[in-house]
């Protein structure tokens, strides 16, 4: 009897926990869902629930040169940013993981700083410097700034993977005749590749999503989509912004799924 009552009590608590979890998830996801629904609205302004269904805001997004241009600018920034940040971040992680030198914590801290320093501080700094060196209002400047912001994410994921890779595998490869470069290419790289891809995806998503620094160093001619959204929302607000938000959301979701698949594959291999 006692154990039955206790079992009943446990059941109650586990159900309560489930309900709380579902509510929490709803709370987090609801705004996204609402934006997603509004992006298909037939009304010319942001309203919920929408009076009817239409694809006009997506048509507007891809048809309007300002919107489409800014979307294109974002892609032009995020692709090189992700590639450069992944290369730099991977190299830095490897160097930090496999060597010991004076000032190593300092270098690590320096690399990771953009993750902890308030973005607005970074933005002001970047703004001040880039204006003087001709990186203001052009793609190169935005790519460099986004690279600085995304490198820490690559370093974090790749470093975590490197601590898992047994260093004796690299040592074994060397005793078998592989130079350090060959060892990295044939042993280390394949083993940390999922983490590198994950870092690449992270970098893309963060660059795509970045607003604050972009706001400071972009101009109306070179304007990523987030900045366009920002200026749009302060003027005439129409559901095009919801369509953009939906696209960014789907892009992040896609990256997340790709990451999960990559991780699953590694687990199967190791």
């Amino acid at each position: 009897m006692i154990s039955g009552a206790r079992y009943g009590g446990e059941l109650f608590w586990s159900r309560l926990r489930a309900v709380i979890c579902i509510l929490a998830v709803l709370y987090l996801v609801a705004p996204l869902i609402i934006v997603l629904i509004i992006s298909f609205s037939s009304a010319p302004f942001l309203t919920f629930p929408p009076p009817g269904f239409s694809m006009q805001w997506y048509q507007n997004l891809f048809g309007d040169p300002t919107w489409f241009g800014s979307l294109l600018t974002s892609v032009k920034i995020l692709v090189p940013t992700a590639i450069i940040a992944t290369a730099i971040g991977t190299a830095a992680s490897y160097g930090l993981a496999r060597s010991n030198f004076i000032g190593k914590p300092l270098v690590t801290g320096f690399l990771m700083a953009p993750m902890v320093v308030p973005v607005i501080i970074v933005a002001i700094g970047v703004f001040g410097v880039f204006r003087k060196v001709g990186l203001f209002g052009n793609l190169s400047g935005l790519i460099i700034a986004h690279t600085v912001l995304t490198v820490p994410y690559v370093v974090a994921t790749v470093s975590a993977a490197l601590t898992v890779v047994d260093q004796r595998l690299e040592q074994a490869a060397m005793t078998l005749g592989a130079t350090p470069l060959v060892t990295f290419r044939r042993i280390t790289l394949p083993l940390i590749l999922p983490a590198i891809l994950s870092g690449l995806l992270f970098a893309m998503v963060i660059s795509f999503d970045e607003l604050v620094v972009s706001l400071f160093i972009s101009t109306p001619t070179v304007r990523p989509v987030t900045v366009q959204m920002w200026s749009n929302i302060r003027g005439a607000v129409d559901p095009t912004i919801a369509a953009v938000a939906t696209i960014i959301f789907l892009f992040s979701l896609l990256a997340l799924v790709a990451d999960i698949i990559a991780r699953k594959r590694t687990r199967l291999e190791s």
Partner: protein
Amino acid sequence: MHGISMDKESTTIATLELRDVRKLYGATAAVDGVNLTLKRGEFLTFLGPSGSGKTTTLAMVAGLQTPTSGRIILDGQPLDPLPPYRRNIGMVFQHYALFPHMTVAKNIAFPLEMRKIDGEERKRRVAEALRLVGLPDFGDRFPNQLSGGQQQRVALARAMVFQPPLLLMDEPLGALDKKLREQMQLEILRLHRDLGMSILYVTHDQEEALVMSDRIAVFNDGRIQQIGSAEELYERPISRFVAGFLGESNMIRGKVVALDSGDCVLESRHGRLRAFNTAKLKTGDQAVVAVRPERLTITDPSIERENLVKGRVVEVIYLGQSRKYVLKTEDNAEMTVLQQAQDAEKHSINPGDEICLEWRGRESNALAAEG
């Protein structure tokens, strides 16, 4: 894998020499002046407790660690300027270190690939190596699909397939259970005999060292305490550490009162003792007599003579083929005696019995009391 069998002539040529090799980590010496010569085709084991410097020494030979000072010479060539990938030394790691993303065949082919051996030759050699370690049909598997013993064989095949003149093994059987370990010991010995390569083997398992080695180097505190054949080390340990680490020894304190044709005569609480002067002691030295449990015999105490110790049995341990008795002597020191089952069954000995032990002086060693 062919034709590396060595004739008698070349067995005297040294292949590896370590001269005063040191490795410091800050102010502490992990390896503190190691000297040794490994002969061609020899199986030499580094035996010692963990942290005694044996693995560090091995890593320096492989090139994975850089000596702080000293020289390592392979076949007359100094190894120190060479990075590990130019040394052409095979190494088997403690946890196998197989590449998890490559099949067994790819793992074994890796050193051949690095040496630009391609096509049919590579295939043939991989197949040969797999056959040699008894895994001919395992080429397409991944390491995680193999048992520990099988992984160990693959690691062995990978380290041998490029026919290095020297093979290093760092506690290769440490992760296997006892039965598999004994089986692998014999297989490694067979491969060593068949292929004739020189082997440096690291272990902290003294039994393994006794079974496998031509010679054993006992490490402690970063130094080689003694190097010699298993029999030399077991029968004539030159220090208390070696006597205690390799096998079991009873230690009886005493003072050297005379030297007599290679023996020490000592005065102790148990009267006069005689032991072989292994540590080259002088009259007046504080010493211990180290005597193996199996060298002690149970005897009649009525006649006073040398090498006689009385004690009370406190424990009788049944070991199947033998019996072990633990004694407390008059001065409250512990001694152990090992008797073969047949001898033990002649007289029944129980806890509480007073017995008397004796041994032949030549079968015990007089060693310095310290160190």
